[in-house]
C-alpha cells in the first residue's frame, strides 16, 4: 500500500517535471503558443473599447490569459494520449506498473506550470496596452483560479480517454470544440449572471461547464472586488465540479484500459 502511494507520487512528479522541462527547453514553442490568445484578446479589447466601455477591455485580457490554459487542455491533455498511442508511448505506460492516473495528473501539473509563461505574457502585454482597472488580488481570486484550473484539467483527463476510443476523429472533434466552449463558457464575455445577454435556458446549459463558473467568478473577483463572502456559491460549485470531473476522468481512464485489453485496438495503433 505504502509503496503503491510512493510509486504514484514518483510517476506524477516525474511526468510533471518532464513536461515542464520539455516546455521550457523549447522557448519557440512558448512563443508560438502565446500568439493565438494574445492577438485574439488584443482584438477583442479593441472591440470593447469601440463598444464604448474601455473598463471592460480587462474581460478580453483576462479571457486571453485563461484561453491559453483552455488551448493547453485541449491540445496537450485531451489529445495527448492519442498521440502517445501513435508513438508507442502509451504501450510503455500500460506495460509498466505506473498508474495512468498518476501520469495524467502529472501531465496536468506540468501543463499548468508550462502554460504559465503564455498566460502571463497575455496578461502583462494586455495590461500595458489597455490598462484595464484590476482589483487587487485576493484569497478568493487565488482559490477560484486554482479550482478553475483543476476543473479544466479534469475535463482534459476525461476527454483524453474519450478520444482514445474515438481514434482518428478525435482531432477534428477537438478542433471543433475550442470555439463553441469559448463562447458558452464566456471566456471573453459574461455568459451567465446578470450581465449575460444570453437567455436563461442557454445560461443553464453553459453552467454545466466548469469553466463557465470559473470565468464568471474570476471576472467578479478581478473586476468587481468580490470576495469569498459573495463568491462562496461559485467556489463550492467549482470544488464539486472539479472533483466530479477528475473522478469521472480517472474512472473513464480505467475503463479505457480495461476495454483496450479486450478489444486490442484502443491502446495501440494498428499499422
Amino acid at each position, binding site marked *: 500500500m505504502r509503496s503503491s502511494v510512493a510509486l504514484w507520487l514518483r510517476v506524477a512528479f516525474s511526468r510533471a517535471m*518532464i513536461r515542464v522541462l*520539455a516546455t521550457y*527547453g523549447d522557448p519557440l514553442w512558448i512563443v508560438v503558443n502565446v500568439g493565438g490568445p494574445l492577438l485574439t484578446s488584443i482584438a477583442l479589447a479593441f472591440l470593447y473599447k469601440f463598444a464604448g466601455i474601455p473598463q471592460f477591455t480587462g474581460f478580453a485580457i483576462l479571457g486571453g490569459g485563461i484561453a491559453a490554459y483552455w488551448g493547453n487542455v485541449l491540445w496537450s491533455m485531451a489529445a495527448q494520449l492519442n498521440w502517445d498511442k501513435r*508513438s508507442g508511448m502509451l*504501450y*510503455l505506460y500500460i506495460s*509498466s506498473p505506473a498508474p495512468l492516473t498518476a501520469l495524467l495528473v502529472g501531465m496536468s501539473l506540468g501543463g499548468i506550470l508550462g502554460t504559465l509563461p503564455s498566460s502571463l505574457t497575455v496578461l502583462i502585454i494586455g495590461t500595458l496596452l489597455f490598462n484595464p482597472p484590476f482589483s487587487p488580488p485576493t484569497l478568493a481570486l487565488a482559490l477560484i483560479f486554482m479550482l478553475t484550473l483543476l476543473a479544466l484539467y479534469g475535463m482534459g483527463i476525461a476527454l483524453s480517454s474519450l478520444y482514445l476510443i474515438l481514434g482518428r476523429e478525435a482531432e477534428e472533434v477537438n478542433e471543433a470544440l475550442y470555439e463553441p466552449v469559448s463562447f458558452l463558457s464566456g471566456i471573453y464575455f459574461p455568459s451567465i449572471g446578470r450581465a449575460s445577454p444570453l437567455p436563461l435556458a442557454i445560461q443553464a446549459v453553459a453552467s454545466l461547464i466548469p469553466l463557465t463558473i470559473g470565468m464568471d467568478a474570476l471576472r467578479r473577483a478581478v473586476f468587481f472586488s468580490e470576495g469569498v463572502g459573495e463568491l462562496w456559491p461559485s467556489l463550492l460549485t467549482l470544488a464539486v465540479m472539479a472533483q466530479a470531473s477528475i473522478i469521472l476522468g480517472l474512472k473513464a481512464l480505467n475503463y479505457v484500459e480495461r476495454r483496450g485489453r479486450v478489444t486490442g485496438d484502443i491502446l*495501440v495503433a494498428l499499422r
Partner: protein
Amino acid sequence: MANVEVESLTRVFETRSRRVLALDNVNLEVEKGEVFGLLGPNGAGKTTLIRILTTLLLPTSGRAVVGGFDVVKEAKKVRGIIGFSSSSERVGFDFVTARRNLWFFSQLYGVPKSEADRRIEELASLLEFQDQLDRKLYMLTTGYKQRLNLARALINDPTVVFFDEPTNGMDVFSAKKVRELFVREARVNSRTVFLATHNMFEAEEICDRVAIIDRGRILAVDTPENLKLTLDKPVVMLETDVAGASVGDPRTLDGVVGGTVKLDSESETANIRVILRDEDYLDKVVTLLERRGVKVLGYQRLEPTLEDVFISKVGAGFAERERSLEV
C-alpha cells in the same frame, strides 16, 4: 524454473468485417537466462503473443505466466518485472536530454534516484552512448535513439525482456551490437530475452531456442541446430530462365514438399528453391520444369536454413505466406 509459461493460449480478434484467429492454442516454456526467438512471417501472431505477455492484451482463452505471475490476474506484478521495446515505436521527449528521458522511464517503475543514476551510466557505457547522455533527444542520430530505446527497455532491471522486431530498420553494424547485447543480458544478467523476429539469420545466430510460428500456431520449438537436423530432406536451388518465375506454387511439381520462387530481374533468371521428398525426385522436377517451358540453367544442393524448416512444414516461404494473407 521457467520464466515464461504459456498454456493453450488462444486469441481471437473480432472486427466488424472479419474474425481473426491470431493465436491458436499456443504452448511454450522459456527458461531463465535464455535467448528465445519467436520466428515467423508478418501476420503470424508474434506481436499478439508479446502483447498478451506484456499485459496489453487479454487472451481469449488459455493461460500465461511471466516471472511466476499470471498475466491476467496479476498484471500489476508482471508489469514491474518486464521490459519491452519494439522497432516501430518512436518514444521519448525531444526537448529533454537523453539522461532525463531515461530517468523518466525509470520512474515509471519507481526506481530510486541513486539506483536510476547508476543504471543509466551503466547502460550508456554498455551501449556506448555516454557522450550523448546530456544532449537533447532531437539532436541524437537515429542510431543513438535506437540504442537509447534499448537502454530504456532495461532500465528497470527486468527479469524478462521482450523485443518485437528490434533490429528492423537498423544498420548492419548496430544490429550486430544489439544482438551481442541480448546474448550478454541473458548470460551475464540471467535475464530471459524474448525476441520476436522474421529475420531467420537473427534467430539462428543468437537464439538458444526458436519457436516457429505461422498463422497463430507454433509449428516447432527447438534449438536452431536441432530444427535443421529434423529436416532430413534435400534442399535444392534451381537456377532457371525468367520463365521459371511464373511456375506458380512449386508444390504442383511432383515430389516437391514446398518451396519459394524468386525472380532475379538483374541477371534475368529465376531462383526456385525447393525441398524434395527425396534425392530421386530431382531429375523428375527438372524434366517437369522443362516440359512447362522453363529452361533449367543449373542446380545446387544447399544446407538447410530455418526458412527451409518453415517451408517443409507450411509448404511455402515467408514471402508467399505474407502475400497470401493480404487477400
